[in-house]
């Protein structure tokens, strides 16, 4: 499957996000970054996740740990909702 990779530097500059925050998200496994020739890239498919986490961090003041917990619980809600829909 074809994937489009976007330079993290470009994303940070257009969204006004600190690069360190993106790296921390990656270190926590919340997003996936790849490094090519000393440049970091994010899969376009994951851009919405980065935008969402940045929103939580800057607007709701959630730290990385908080984002991890929220993400985990939301995934769980989503799964339970799907199960509930199937049982209906």
């Amino acid at each position, binding site marked *: 499957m*074809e994937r489009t990779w976007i330079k993290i530097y470009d994303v940070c500059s257009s969204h006004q996000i600190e690069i360190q925050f993106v790296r921390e998200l990656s270190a926590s496994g919340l997003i996936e970054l790849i490094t090519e020739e000393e440049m970091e890239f994010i899969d376009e498919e994951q851009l*919405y996740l980065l935008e*969402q986490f940045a*929103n939580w961090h800057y*607007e709701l003041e*959630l730290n990385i740990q908080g984002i991890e917990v929220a993400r985990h619980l*939301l995934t769980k*809600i989503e799964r339970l909702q799907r199960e509930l*829909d199937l049982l209906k």
Partner: protein
Amino acid sequence: MAFVDYYKVLGLDKGASADDIKKAYRKLARKYHPDMNPNDEAAKQKFQEINEANEVLTDSEKRKKYDQYGENWKHGEAYEQASRQQRSQQSGQTTGNPFEGFDFDGYNGNYDAGEFSDFFEQMFGSRSGGGRQAKFRGNDYNSVLELTLQQAYSTHQQTFTVNGKNIRITIPAGVENGQKIRLKGQGAEGINGGPAGDLFIQFDIKTDPQVQRQGNDLHKTQEVDLYTMLLGGELLVETFAGKIKVKVKPETQNGSRIRLKGRGFPVYKKEKEFGDLFISLQVKLPTDLSTEEIALFQQLANKRK
């Protein structure tokens, strides 16, 4: 239109400091943010109320006006006018109720049905005039779309309804079971002019009783009569792309597998690339044998002894 107690909305009293307001807002925003409460209209409504309260109480001018008029907000402008008149007449004398004697039912401030309450719009006008409210991205929607294996085999369009909105999408051939696609901006509308959320569609591909899919390969079991298995011949195999002729070699063993290269499932987003089709041949023994057939089989059996 009811008065909205913004202090109460944020759980504060009138003496709250800017820091108290910020803290209370953050705390409630975390609780009721639409991202944290997927598909919860009540939470979204509450979040809008919190935003509105924050908008007013963090803006010193708005807060001053709100504090000054409070529940008498409807008559605020008239009160200001009356005050001005009184000052110019240097009369200084006021009645118990400064709004007494005024009839301002005709007042219909500058508002339309936006994201903020009618109360806000009437008191402060439309907030599309440079409010410094944080914009929030709309909620994402998640949807599951069921497909048959046959449907997933070819690129096709489907129309379906999500939250009352008809959405037409092109489903590329070769989508996988459980695969998710994102339709940008097709989720819930943003808050305070923020961007709309996304719509995620997950494909639930039903299993097919005739064909099993393993990645891009297809596996099928085909019954073949005894004589074709023994003597060889041709058989017609039904595939998603139509019927195809397959040669069977003489003395083919039961359970033998034939591989048809490039006759399997299309590779996702790779035009003209297909997996392989594997056909397991299963002998179908004749039943209801006639006396003559039994005798002939007996003869064959004796020859093999």
